[in-house]
């Protein structure tokens, strides 16, 4: 299943293959990959499809397991939801269903989408298809792996800090999160509501645009969803980008420790800038105060943990989820939550709850939201001059499993934490593969102005065209 959506659509139209066979192929690939890479919580075995004349009609895909699917187990990769069967459909799932796309499975995530390693799901760790000793990254780990492995041409994930764009980078695929509210969040199990976005994985920008065209739009179930923009992004992909201007942040590219991976990434980035210039995009250096850049991660942690501790307070095992034992309601709730959450989640909840306490709100919680304002104001100011920000998506290649845990630590690289700017301001942001370091894929990220999803896709598409990393699949043809 290494073909693109367009190619598969053509095959289906020409009856070279039928959609049920395509589904069966996907299911087989999914099952075959499961033991080695563990991308799935659930692999579906029943072929079900609506008729439509959309481009994804008959095309198999997967959803991250924090997207509500009526009648299909949805666990958020957490023990507390390991038996939860939703009674309603998420808007994004409904739209894909109506467009005739065929759901193959639900993919593993970091528990409750909190984390960036792909190692904390209740069904085990997800491995990087390019190197099994490495992380794929998270939290949309299984969705990234499924696309990188060529199991499906596209997958849906969610992105609160970088949860689509980081694993896309580590997996050598394209990952896009449109403007906040462009895709309805109705049915997405929340992590941090003011930062949560749905996003799309595919192996090329055009496929990402095709899917975005289908799933975007205003939703009366989501008050934060944007009004329809009445644009077809796919049609704008090939417009000229001549005269467009991008900037990168000087401070994020400092390499004081002379990290060798980072050096290679910076070299590669210089090369990407040349590619940009070759298609008429000017790239300039800009400066943002280091103080602010260093505040990104703690502000992100404070906001996301605080919102999460409240968002996940519905997980009490009473009306849904795994019921706890005990003689009083307090006992059963405490038992359910104690057994249902892993350590990392509990630590995040406690931090979030502490930050929200009356006496800490001003200094911790509101200060985090203030940093958010300063960052977004700065970005909006730069966006007056530039069409977008271009940066390496990460400071290195996918880490080894033993390299990094999700503990908070003092050591911290701006280049590994800048993607949350896209969530702070709700900007459209895309990661596309741009090379290899130590045989592992690396990627570039472009972040644009709010509501200009079409321009971000357009620039990414043009840049992708002049690089050789389109439609790549881990481990060669499948």
């Amino acid at each position, binding site marked *: 299943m290494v073909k693109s959506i367009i190619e598969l659509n053509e095959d289906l139209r020409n009856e070279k293959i039928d959609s049920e066979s395509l589904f069966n192929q996907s299911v087989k690939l999914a099952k075959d990959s499961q033991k080695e890479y563990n991308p799935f919580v659930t692999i579906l075995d029943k072929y079900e499809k609506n008729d439509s004349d959309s481009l994804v009609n008959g095309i198999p895909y997967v959803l991250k397991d924090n997207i509500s699917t009526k009648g299909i187990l949805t666990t958020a990769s957490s023990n507390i939801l390991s038996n939860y069967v939703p*009674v309603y459909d998420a808007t994004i799932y409904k739209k894909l269903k109506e467009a005739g796309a065929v759901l193959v499975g639900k993919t593993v995530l970091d528990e409750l989408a909190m984390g960036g390693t792909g190692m904390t799901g209740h069904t085990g760790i997800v491995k990087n298809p390019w190197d099994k000793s490495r992380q794929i990254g998270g939290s949309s780990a299984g969705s990234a792996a499924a696309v990188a492995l060529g199991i499906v041409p596209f997958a849906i994930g969610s992105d609160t800090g970088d949860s689509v764009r980081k694993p896309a980078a580590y997996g050598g695929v394209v990952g896009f999160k449109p403007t906040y509210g462009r895709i309805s969040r109705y049915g997405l199990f929340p992590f941090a509501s003011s930062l949560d976005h749905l996003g799309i994985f595919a192996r090329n920008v055009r496929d990402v645009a095709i899917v975005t065209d289908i799933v975007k739009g205003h939703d009366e179930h989501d008050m934060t969803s944007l009004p329809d923009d009445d644009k077809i992004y796919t049609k704008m992909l090939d417009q000229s980008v001549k005269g467009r201007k991008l900037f990168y942040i000087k401070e994020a590219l400092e390499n004081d420790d002379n990290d060798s991976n980072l050096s290679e990434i910076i070299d590669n980035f210089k090369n990407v800038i040349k590619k940009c210039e070759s298609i008429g995009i000017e790239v300039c250096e800009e400066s943002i105060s280091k103080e602010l850049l260093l505040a990104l991660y703690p502000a992100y942690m404070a906001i996301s943990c605080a919102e999460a501790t409240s968002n996940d307070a519905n997980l009490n095992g009473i009306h849904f989820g795994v019921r706890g034992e005990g003689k009083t309601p307090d006992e059963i709730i405490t038992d359910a939550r104690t057994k249902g959450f892993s350590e990392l989640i509990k630590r995040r909840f406690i931090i979030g709850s502490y930050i929200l306490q009356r006496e800490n709100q001003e200094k911790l919680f509101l*200060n985090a939201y*203030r940093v958010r304002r300063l960052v977004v104001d700065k970005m909006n100011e730069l966006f007056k001059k530039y069409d977008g920000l271009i940066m390496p998506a990460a400071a290195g290649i996918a880490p080894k499993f033993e390299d990094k845990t999700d503990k908070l630590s003092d050591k911290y690289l701006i280049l590994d934490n800048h993607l949350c700017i896209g969530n702070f301001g709700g900007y459209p942001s895309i990661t596309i593969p741009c090379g290899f370091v130590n045989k592992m894929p690396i990627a570039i990220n472009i972040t644009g102005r709010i509501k200009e999803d079409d321009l971000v896709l357009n620039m990414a598409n043009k840049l992708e065209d002049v690089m050789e990393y389109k439609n790549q699949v881990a481990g060669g043809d499948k």
Partner: protein
Amino acid sequence: MDKKTLKLLAKKLMFTMNEEEYDTLSEEFATILKQMDLIGKIDNIDKVEPLIYPFPLENTLMREDEVLDELPIDDILLNSGSSLYNQVKVPKVVE
């Protein structure tokens, strides 16, 4: 942050952790609080209006007052661990 405070925080969130987990948490707290302290030192940070939503969402419309979505009783009880007479059952709530 001392363990007693952390345990109280956990209790308020209705779960418990084991001793080593509290140690890790304590380290994390030290880190995040140190980082948050740095944020507090940003010039005039207290004068900045907090940004809660990514950008202003204009023309948000309220819902018209119509009855549309109601769940069948089977769906309401489907995921509850225990039910009786079409209601979700819990151990006796003592106020």
